[in-house]
């Protein structure tokens, strides 16, 4: 295995890689963005020129050395460029989730003490302005989109174009300051602060050094043998460590070209137009794709439907083996080739994945059926396990050893061990320096020898060395009977049904397990249309008796499945209800990366949990909701509670 620290001999910061590319490959495409219906390309030389100008502009605007600068917005050329600009100018980029409500932004901005904010558009600027006096530190806001910003412009709120002009015409003093700041940086300097999505409590700022991100990026490039010129579509939040490492670090280092979609809603068309070579998505993206394929197939003509099902059955049997180059027999191979011609190929094409040579899913467990589906039609989808603190990668699946139940072997440079309590620990040159201004948490997570606790319980499989994750270490508990309680394990099984969007299992220290279910509106809605079930709202559909019966069926199947596992058979679901509202990050019920905040949900819906345990048949409840614009309201509902079949 290649040594991923070798990269540090060549570079000590990531912007040096950009500058190098601009020198050696000035005319190769570096970053594209679809604007006004056309893909606008920046070459490495454009990219570097823009970044340099903005860096100078930032210094002209009074940006101090080593100061954090916040970035908030969708994936945009200019914002990626700004990441480099901030680093060049000696600062620390702090990307913020673009869909964070003002309240969440407040925490990050206050904690990081960013004085300059680079915001995409009016929506983001409004959020900052709304926080007003709570942010005494903020001095300047730069914005990208002019639209509706006319009346905002002032000394402190300025268009990014102006900053670029300032940079272009910068003074001698600024230029020498710029050179001085660039020279002062080492591989030990802070490269970025990424705020975690905060599954538990307030989000923490993970400090990654230049060395951390360079080694992580270099390791991943060598692991999957990524080649220069490969195309990537950057659509995941810029504040997420995955996108940061891929789009800002791996892209220049591996000379990949990143593509920014036109808008959040045009992703599917944009994917198709670009045809990325490398694709990364959380499980919900793949779930969503599969659901939409299935819905469209159901609406297709009979012949198409039959062909699809015939060849999908074939793919299910041999597709995975074909992908891994294993022998499947001549006849099967010929049949698969035919399927590839009329079903798999066109399907890959319409998903925009014809050229994907490596696809990754991470963040949550992915349903085995979803995973197998994509692999069976010839998309090399793999799993990786990682976290912000690790600079993404802890384990990755090597080609030829891909299975849905494990998350792979240690990534380049990573050492792995299992702690006494079953918790997974790792150590690597890419693991984080510290939590920003939070030495208490740093000490809790990282020991003196550099071992970082993941907070996940798991074990290393005998023989293969693959890591298997069971659940969050702190969530794994015991039932009153002493049996093991692993809520995530059960919830994931439930979520693998397309009709179920989210599930929350309760049962720690209790006799039995009970569950909240969230239906998937697009999938259940489509089913309701077919069944001629009329409904006026999400709430009405969720409470429909037929929907309840369908969910009951799913739960009975899961119970049957769990009962086969001796260790976890106590986790079967006794009673359940279907929630009248979707769990929503705006209400704080799930994180922006869609992980359930268990304790929060339990407290917020304590009346429902109580009713699940006390044997009531229905429960009347009132729930506070937050709208997208921050206003609050409340909805009330009477929910039915049903019992499922327990298997002894």
């Amino acid at each position, binding site marked *: 295995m290649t040594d991923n620290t070798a990269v540090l001999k060549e570079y000590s910061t990531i912007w040096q890689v950009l500058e190098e590319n601009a020198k050696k490959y000035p005319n190769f495409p570096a970053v594209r963005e679809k*604007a006004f*219906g*056309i893909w606008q390309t920046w070459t490495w030389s454009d990219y570097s020129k823009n970044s340099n100008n903005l860096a100078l502009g930032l210094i002209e605007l009074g940006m101090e050395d080593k100061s954090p600068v916040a970035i908030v917005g969708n994936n945009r050329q200019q914002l990626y460029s700004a990441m480099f600009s901030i680093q060049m100018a000696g600062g620390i980029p702090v990307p913020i989730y673009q869909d964070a409500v003002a309240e969440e932004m407040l925490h990050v901005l206050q904690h990081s003490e960013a004085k300059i904010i680079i915001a995409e558009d009016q929506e983001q600027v409004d959020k900052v302005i709304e926080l007003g006096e709570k942010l005494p530190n903020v001095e300047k806001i730069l914005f990208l989109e002019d*639209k*509706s910003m*006319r*009346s905002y412009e002032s000394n402190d709120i300025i268009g990014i174009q102006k900053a670029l002009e300032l940079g272009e015409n910068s003074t001698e003093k600024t230029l020498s300051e710029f050179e001085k700041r660039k020279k002062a940086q080492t591989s030990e300097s802070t490269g970025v602060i990424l705020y975690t999505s905060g599954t538990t409590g307030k989000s923490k700022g993970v400090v990654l050094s230049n060395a951390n991100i360079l080694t992580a990026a270099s390791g991943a490039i060598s692991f999957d043998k990524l080649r220069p010129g490969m195309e990537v579509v950057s659509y995941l939040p810029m504040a997420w460590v995955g996108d940061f490492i891929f789009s800002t670090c791996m892209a220049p280092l591996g000379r990949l070209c990143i593509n920014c979609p036109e*808008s959040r*809603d045009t992703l599917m*068309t944009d994917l198709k137009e670009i045809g990325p070579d490398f694709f990364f998505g959380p499980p919900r993206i793949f779930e969503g794709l599969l659901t939409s394929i299935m819905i469209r197939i159901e609406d297709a003509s009979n012949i198409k439907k039959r062909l699809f099902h015939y060849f999908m059955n074939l793919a299910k049997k041999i597709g995975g083996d074909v992908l891994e180059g294993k022998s499947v027999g001549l006849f099967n191979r010929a049949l698969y080739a035919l399927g590839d011609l009329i079903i798999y190929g066109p399907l890959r094409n319409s998903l925009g994945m014809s050229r994907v040579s490596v696809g990754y899913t991470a963040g949550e467990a992915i349903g085995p059926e979803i995973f197998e589906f994509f692999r069976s039609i010839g998309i090399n989808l793999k799993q990786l396990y990682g976290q912000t603190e690790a600079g993404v990668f802890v384990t990755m699946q090597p080609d030829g050893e891909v299975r849905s139940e494990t998350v792979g072997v240690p990534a380049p440079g990573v050492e792995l061990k299992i702690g006494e309590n079953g918790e997974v620990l790792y150590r690597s040159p890419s693991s984080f320096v510290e939590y920003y201004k939070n030495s208490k948490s740093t000490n809790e997570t990282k020991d003196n020898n550099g071992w970082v606790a993941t907070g996940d319980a798991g074990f290393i499989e005998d023989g293969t060395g693959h890591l298997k994750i069971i659940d969050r270490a702190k969530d794994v508990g015991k039932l009153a009977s002493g049996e093991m309680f692993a809520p995530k394990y059960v919830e994931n099984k439930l979520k693998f049904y397309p009709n179920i969007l989210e599930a929350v299992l309760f049962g720690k220290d209790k006799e039995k397990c009970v569950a909240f279910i969230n239906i998937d509106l697009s999938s259940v809605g489509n089913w309701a249309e077919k069944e001629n079930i009329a409904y006026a709202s999400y709430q009405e559909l969720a409470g429909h008796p037929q929907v309840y019966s369908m969910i009951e069926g799913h739960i009975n199947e899961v119970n049957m499945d769990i009962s086969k596992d001796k260790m976890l058979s106590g986790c079967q679901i006794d009673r359940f209800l279907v929630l009248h509202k979707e769990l929503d990050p705006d209400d704080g019920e799930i994180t922006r990366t869609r992980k359930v905040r268990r304790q929060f949900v339990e407290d917020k819906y304590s009346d429902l949990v109580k009713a699940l345990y006390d044997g009531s048949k229905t429960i009347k409840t009132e729930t506070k909701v937050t709208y997208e614009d921050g206003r609050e309201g409340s909805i009330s509902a009477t929910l039915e509670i049903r019992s499922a079949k327990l298997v002894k």
Partner: protein
Amino acid sequence: MEEKKKNNTIMEVKDITLRFGGVTAIEGVSFDILEGEVRAIIGPNGAGKSSMLNVINGFYHPQEGEVWFNGQKRGAMKPYQIAYQGIARTFQNIALFKGMSTLDNIMTGRFTHMKSGMISQVFWKGKAEKEEYENREAVEKVIDFLEIQTIRKTEVGKLPYGLQKRVELGRALAAEPKLLLLDEPMAGMNVEEKEDMSRFILDVNEEFGTTVALIEHDMGVVMDIADRVVVMDYGKNIGDGTPKEIVSNQKVIDAYLGVSHD
């Protein structure tokens, strides 16, 4: 909102009377529209609002009265000639080409900016080619402005109502009009769609400085976005002023609450 520049009168209608046979739709109505303002025309059903818009737009020719646009008295003109003068409109009942894509629909709004002849358009050479690029760019700016990138290639007939309304606004905007006429832009919309549409109308007015004249039933919307309001009832002008003045105008209150007319 800061005080906008609205000195010049861009449009003035004087003593307009419009009859259909024996029915008098509009009777002696006069008002003006100032450059850069949002001017609303309101009134109960059958008050003659749409007819008024059709007069401004040149679709109806009033029997009496004068229409002044840009400081010139207008003679009898065809609607397309008026479009060339810089007046664009949307319709109460959407009038789009249902089988064409959003892009093509908005492109038709550019016809006043296309000057190349048929022959060169057929061969798509020289001027025609250059023009096509320029026009496409203008259309893309409108698409970007109205945030309808997702439906760029979608057949308009398949779109939900609220989006069709937006496309129609897009077509009118593509003409880069001096005066934009909107006939009930919010009709049949839900609250969210209304909010979006209000936003777009205000943005058009502020960003491009386009003068907007609109007919609307939703009083809340009118009071929020209009600078000045004309109230019509039974074909007559019964009130004219800022939204504040209008809500306290007794004649207007009577018209809306239904006092018996003698």
